[in-house]
C-alpha cells in the first residue's frame, strides 16, 4: 500500500538548522544600520522604592550621547498581555514614580557606542526613597506587608478557582488521604540568544522593529498602545531567534525604548541585553508553594483532590495570570478526579517577574501531582505505574466544564515506558545507590481563551500558487528554533502534493503576513498555525480541482488529488496535469488574477483550555553517590503521544531539549535570590546541564489521531518539560530514601534526607 503521506512523518531537517550551526544566521544583534545608536538601560538598585528625582543632565552632556529618557518622557501607558482585563496591565516601559524590583528599568540612554552608553548610565543620578520590600509569598501576604501596586492591596493580583464534584464528600468516602506541601524554585529560560531589538523610524514616522520575540503581533499591538500610535504604523519583524521558551512573549522595555528613541533621534537604535541582565532581571519560571490533598480508595481508585497554589509572581503580572489558570488545569489532568477543587493565587513580591516558561505552570503543578502519586503508590502498596494506569484518562473523558479529551495515548505511553526501561525488574532488584522512577505529563496544544483580546483569527496563512509550480506561504507564526517554519511547510507540501523545495515561506513580519497570529507559546503553532495553512491549502485545491475537472470533463463523482507535483482524478491518474499547469489554467480562467487563498484557525466550542491534549510517561534511572549526594542520571526513557508525528527529527529534538531542561530543573538549575538580588548571574554559577552531562535516552511516539489537529497532530515538546523532575525525584528516592518535596534536588538535601 502506498504511504498515506508523502512528507508528513518524514525526517525533514529544520529550515534554520544549517544557518544556525554554521553561524550564517543573522540574529537581531548581528544587524547594523547606518547611523545606528546603541541603547542601554539604567535599572533600579533597590527592590522597592519611590523615585524622588532623576537628573539626567550630566549623562546628556557626555559626548556621544544622543538621547536619554526616563518614564517622565514617555506617554506613561501601562501594558500587559491580558488586554481583555485592563486591570491586570501593571507595567510601564520605564518606571513611573516607583520601582518594584532590583533591575526595574528606570531610564534609557542611546549613544554612538555601547561603552559611551554605559558610561552615561553612571552619570544619571536617581534619588530614591526606599520602601519596605517582600521577597516571598508568605511575607507578601502578611497583614503588615507593603503593597507593591495600589490596585492590589493584598498583593494578590489575580486568583483562579476551579471546582467540580464534592471534594469534602470525596475525602470522607476515601480509604486513604494524604496531604503534602511542595515548593519549587525559580529557573531561567536560559535561551542562547539574549534579547535584542533594533528600531528604525522612517520619514513618515512609522516604526520598523526587528526583535527577538516569540510574539510579533503582541509586540506590535502593545508597542502601538504604549507609544500612542496606530497598530499598522508599526511593523514588527522577527529575524532568526535563538530560543525563547516563554521568556520572549511580551512587549519588553527595550523594544519600547528602541522604538521611542528611534522616533526621537531619527536614527536607528539597538538594544541587546547581556547574559547578566538576562539572569538577574529576566523572566523566569514561577517559584511556587503547592499544597495538595488527595484521597484514594484502598484499591487505588482516585476519589478527590484539593489543590492550593501560591505563585511567587515577582513585581509584575507578566504571564502570571495564565500560569495561575493553567496550574489548576494541569492539577486535574492525567487522571480521573471525580471531585476536584483548585485555588490559585498570584502574589506580587519585590523580585524580577516570573512569567511563562516551557510548561507554563505544568512543571510545577505536575511535580507536586506526580510526586504525590508516587508517595501514594508506595503507601497503598501498588506499583506506581500500575496505580497510574488504573486512574489514567482515556479518549473521550471529560473534564467537567473544561474540556473533552479528543485523543489520548496515556495508558499506552505508561506501558511502553515500563517495557522499554525494564521497570519491573529494576524496581525490584536495584541495590541502594541505584534507582528508577516515573513521572508523567499532559499538555495543551494552544489555548482557547482570548486574554489578548485579539480582533483577528488566532492563526492565519496565505498561500500564493504560481504557474511555475512553486507556492509562497505567508504566515505570522514565529519560528524561534522550535521548527514551525519547517512543519508548516511540510503541512502545505503534503496538502498540495509538492516538495519542500517548491515552497517559499515568509513568516513573522506583521506588515507582510496576514493578520494575525498570537505567537509561539502554549504549544499552539502546529495545531493552530497548521490548521490555518491547511485551510488555505484546501481553498487552493478546490480551485485547482475545479479547473482540472473541467479540463478533462470529469464525472462530478470523481475524487481529486494533489500528489507528487500533479493534480489529477484519484481513480484515473492519467486525467491530470502538473501542479504548475493546473495553476496556469486556473489563472487563465480567472483572466490573469493570481491564485491566492487565505486560511484561518480560531478554536471554537473547544471548552475553556485547549483544543487538544498531549500525554506521556517518562522513566529515569539514576545512580547516587551516597557519600557525596551527587546524582548521575544513567538513562531516560520516554513514551509520548503527540498525535500524528509530522517531523520525527524535530520531535526528537524537542524531546532531547526537554530532558535537558527538565534535568536542570530537577538537579542543577536555580536562580538564587537573596533579598531580591539574583546571586548567580553567569552560566558558571547558573548551572545548566552541558552536552557532556546529558544521559542517553530512548523514546517512542505513541501515535494517536487528534481530530482537531492538522493531519491528526498535536503538541510535542513543551509538555515534556514536566515529567523529568518527578521521575528523577522518584528515582533518587528509590536509590537513597530521600524524598524531594522541595526542588531542586541537591547533593546537600540528599545527604541530609537519606535513610541510613
Amino acid at each position, binding site marked *: 500500500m502506498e504511504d498515506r503521506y508523502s512528507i508528513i512523518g518524514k525526517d525533514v531537517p529544520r529550515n534554520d538548522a544549517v544557518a544556525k550551526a554554521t553561524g550564517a544566521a543573522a540574529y537581531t544583534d548581528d544587524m547594523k544600520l547606518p547611523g545606528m545608536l546603541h541603547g542601554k538601560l539604567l535599572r533600579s538598585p533597590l527592590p522597592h522604592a519611590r523615585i524622588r528625582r532623576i537628573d539626567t543632565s550630566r549623562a546628556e552632556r557626555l559626548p556621544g550621547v544622543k538621547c536619554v529618557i526616563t518614564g517622565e518622557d514617555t506617554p506613561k501607558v501601562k501594558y500587559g498581555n491580558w488586554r481583555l482585563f485592563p486591570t491586570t496591565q501593571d507595567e510601564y516601559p520605564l518606571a513611573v514614580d516607583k520601582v518594584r524590583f532590583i533591575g526595574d528599568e528606570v531610564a534609557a540612554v542611546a549613544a554612538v557606542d555601547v561603552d559611551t552608553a554605559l558610561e552615561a548610565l553612571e552619570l544619571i543620578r536617581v534619588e530614591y526613597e526606599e520602601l519596605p520590600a517582600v521577597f516571598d509569598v508568605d511575607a507578601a501576604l502578611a497583614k503588615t506587608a507593603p503593597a507593591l501596586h495600589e490596585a492590589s492591596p493584598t498583593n494578590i493580583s489575580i486568583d483562579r478557582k476551579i471546582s467540580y464534584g464534592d471534594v469534602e464528600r470525596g475525602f470522607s468516602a476515601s480509604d486513604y488521604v494524604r496531604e503534602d506541601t511542595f515548593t519549587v524554585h525559580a529557573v531561567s529560560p536560559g535561551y542562547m540568544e539574549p534579547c535584542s531589538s533594533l528600531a528604525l523610524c522612517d520619514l513618515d514616522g512609522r516604526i520598523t522593529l526587528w526583535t527577538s520575540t516569540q510574539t510579533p503581533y503582541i509586540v506590535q499591538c502593545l508597542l502601538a498602545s504604549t507609544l500612542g500610535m496606530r497598530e499598522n504604523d508599526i511593523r514588527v519583524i522577527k529575524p532568526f531567534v535563538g530560543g525563547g521558551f516563554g521568556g520572549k512573549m511580551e512587549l519588553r522595555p527595550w523594544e519600547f525604548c528602541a522604538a521611542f528613541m528611534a522616533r526621537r533621534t531619527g536614527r536607528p537604535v539597538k538594544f541587546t541585553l547581556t547574559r547578566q541582565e538576562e539572569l538577574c532581571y529576566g523572566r523566569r519560571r514561577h517559584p511556587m508553594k503547592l499544597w495538595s490533598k488527595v484521597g484514594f480508595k484502598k484499591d487505588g481508585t482516585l476519589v478527590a483532590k484539593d489543590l492550593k497554589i501560591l505563585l511567587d509572581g515577582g513585581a509584575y503580572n507578566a504571564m502570571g495570570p495564565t500560569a495561575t489558570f493553567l496550574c489548576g488545569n494541569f492539577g486535574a489532568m492525567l487522571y480521573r478526579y471525580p471531585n476536584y477543587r483548585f485555588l490559585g493565587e498570584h502574589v506580587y513580591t519585590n523580585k524580577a517577574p516570573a512569567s511563562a516558561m516551557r510548561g507554563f505552570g505544568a512543571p510545577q503543578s505536575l511535580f507536586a501531582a506526580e510526586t504525590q502519586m508516587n508517595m501514594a503508590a508506595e503507601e497503598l502498596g501498588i506499583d506506581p505505574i500500575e496505580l497510574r494506569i488504573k486512574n489514567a484518562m482515556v479518549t473521550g473523558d471529560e473534564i467537567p466544564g473544561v474540556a473533552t479529551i479528543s485523543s489520548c495515548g496515556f495508558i499506552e505511553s505508561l506501558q511502553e515506558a515500563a517495557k522499554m526501561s525494564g521497570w519491573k525488574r529494576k524496581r525490584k532488584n536495584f541495590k541502594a545507590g541505584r534507582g528508577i522512577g516515573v513521572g508523567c505529563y499532559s499538555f495543551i496544544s494552544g489555548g482557547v481563551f482570548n486574554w489578548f483580546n485579539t480582533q483577528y483569527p488566532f492563526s492565519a496563512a496565505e498561500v500564493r500558487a504560481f504557474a511555475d509550480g512553486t507556492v509562497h506561504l505567508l504566515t505570522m507564526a514565529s519560528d524561534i528554533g522550535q521548527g514551525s517554519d519547517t512543519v508548516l511547510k511540510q503541512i502545505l507540501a503534503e496538502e498540495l502534493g509538492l516538495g519542500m523545495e517548491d515552497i517559499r515561506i515568509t513568516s513573522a513580519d506583521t506588515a507582510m503576513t496576514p493578520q494575525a497570529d498570537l505567537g509561539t507559546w502554549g504549544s499552539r503553532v502546529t495545531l493552530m498555525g497548521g490548521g490555518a495553512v491547511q485551510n488555505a491549502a484546501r481553498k487552493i485545491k478546490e480551485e485547482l480541482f475545479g479547473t482540472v475537472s473541467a479540463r478533462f470533463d470529469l464525472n462530478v463523482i470523481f475524487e481529486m488529488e494533489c500528489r507528487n507535483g500533479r493534480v489529477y482524478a484519484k481513480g484515473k491518474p492519467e486525467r491530470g496535469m502538473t501542479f504548475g499547469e493546473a495553476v496556469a489554467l486556473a489563472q487563465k480562467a480567472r483572466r490573469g488574477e493570481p491564485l491566492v487563498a487565505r486560511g484561518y484557525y480560531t478554536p471554537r466550542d473547544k471548552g475553556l483550555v485547549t483544543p487538544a491534549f498531549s500525554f506521556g510517561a517518562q522513566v529515569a534511572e539514576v545512580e547516587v553517590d551516597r557519600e*557525596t549526594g551527587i546524582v548521575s542520571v544513567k538513562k531516560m526513557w520516554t513514551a509520548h503521544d503527540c498525535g500524528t508525528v509530522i517531523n520525527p527529527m524535530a520531535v526528537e529534538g524537542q524531546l532531547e531539549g526537554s530532558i535537558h531542561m527538565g534535568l536542570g530543573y530537577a538537579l*542543577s538549575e536555580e536562580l538564587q535570590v537573596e533579598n531580591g538580588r539574583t546571586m548567580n548571574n553567569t552560566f558558571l554559577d547558573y548551572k545548566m546541564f552541558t552536552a557532556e552531562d546529558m544521559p542517553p535516552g530512548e523514546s517512542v511516539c505513541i501515535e494517536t489521531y487528534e481530530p482537531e489537529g492538522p493531519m491528526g497532530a498535536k503538541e510535542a515538546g513543551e509538555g515534556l518539560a514536566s515529567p523529568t523532575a518527578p521521575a528523577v525525584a522518584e528515582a533518587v528516592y528509590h536509590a537513597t530514601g530521600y524524598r524531594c518535596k522541595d526542588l531542586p534536588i541537591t*547533593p546537600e538535601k540528599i545527604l541530609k534526607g537519606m535513610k541510613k
Partner: protein
Amino acid sequence: MTLSKFDYYGPKTVAEAVGLLGEIGEGAKVMAGGTDVLVRIRHRMLKPRAVVGLKRIEGLNGISCGPKRGLSVGATALLADVAAHRGIRRLYPGIAEAALGTANVQVRNMATLAGNLCNASPAADNAPTLLALNAELTIQGPGGERKRPLEGFFKGPGVTDLAPEEVVTAIFVPPPAERSGTAYLHLSARGKHDCTAVGVGVMLAMAGRKCRDARIFISACGPTPLRAPQAEQMLIGQVPTDKRMAEAGVRASGEALPICDIRASADYRCRVLGVLTRRALQAARDRAAKKG
C-alpha cells in the same frame, strides 16, 4: 565584545614585559590565556589601563618533564597541553588530572597553568596538587629572577605574593619521590564543566608498608588553597589503612575554613571534603603501590 578601553602590549621577551610593567605602573595587568582577565574586564570587575600579554614571548610555553629533572611548565603552556602531555600523565598523573578537570575544552585550549595560579581563585583546580608536590615558581622582576615555593604564594582570593612589576615565568615540580603517588579529586553540583565547590590534592610517599610522607591541600574551602597538616601527621609513619585514611579525611575537613556560598554550604563542604580526602588518599596510595 565590549571591553573598557585599555592599551595592549605584546612584548617579545620576559625582560621587555617586566620593563613595560615598570613603565606603566599602576593599572597594568599581565595576561597569559586571558580566560580570567578578559572575562573580568568584560564584567567590569577589572578596569586595567594596560594589558601586557605574554603569548608572543617565544619559548615561554615549553614543557619539560623527566624522572630525574622533574617537571617544568612555562608560563604560557596551555592547560590542554599539560593535560595531554605523556610525561606528565605518567610521572605526575595528579597534575594532568587537575588540568583536565579545569573548566571545559575551549577554556583549556586558551588557559594556562601559570594563569590559573596567578588568578589565585580559592577554587583553582591546579593549585592543590602542585602544592602537594612542593612546586616552585620562577619569577622575573626588575631585580632579576627569583624562585619561591608555591606554598605561601596565595595571600587571599585574587591576591598573591607577586609584586606588580613581576611575572611568573615557569612552574617547577621536583622529581616525584620514590614510591609516591598523587591524586586530585573535586566536585560540584553539576557533573562536568563546573567551578569546583570542594577539591583536594594529595601526595603520599611510602616506605615499606608505612607512609613516609603525606601532603594534603584543599581548594574552595577557604580564602586560599589550604594545607591540612594535622591530617598529614595522622598518616606519616603509619600504615595507611582505609580506616586511617577516613579518619585523616575527617581531620582534614576540620582544618578547612569553608564558607557558605552559592556553590555549596559550609556544612556540605566539610562533610564531602572528608570523603574526597579519603578517596584521594586511597587513589594516591594505590598509585604509589603500583610504582613498587
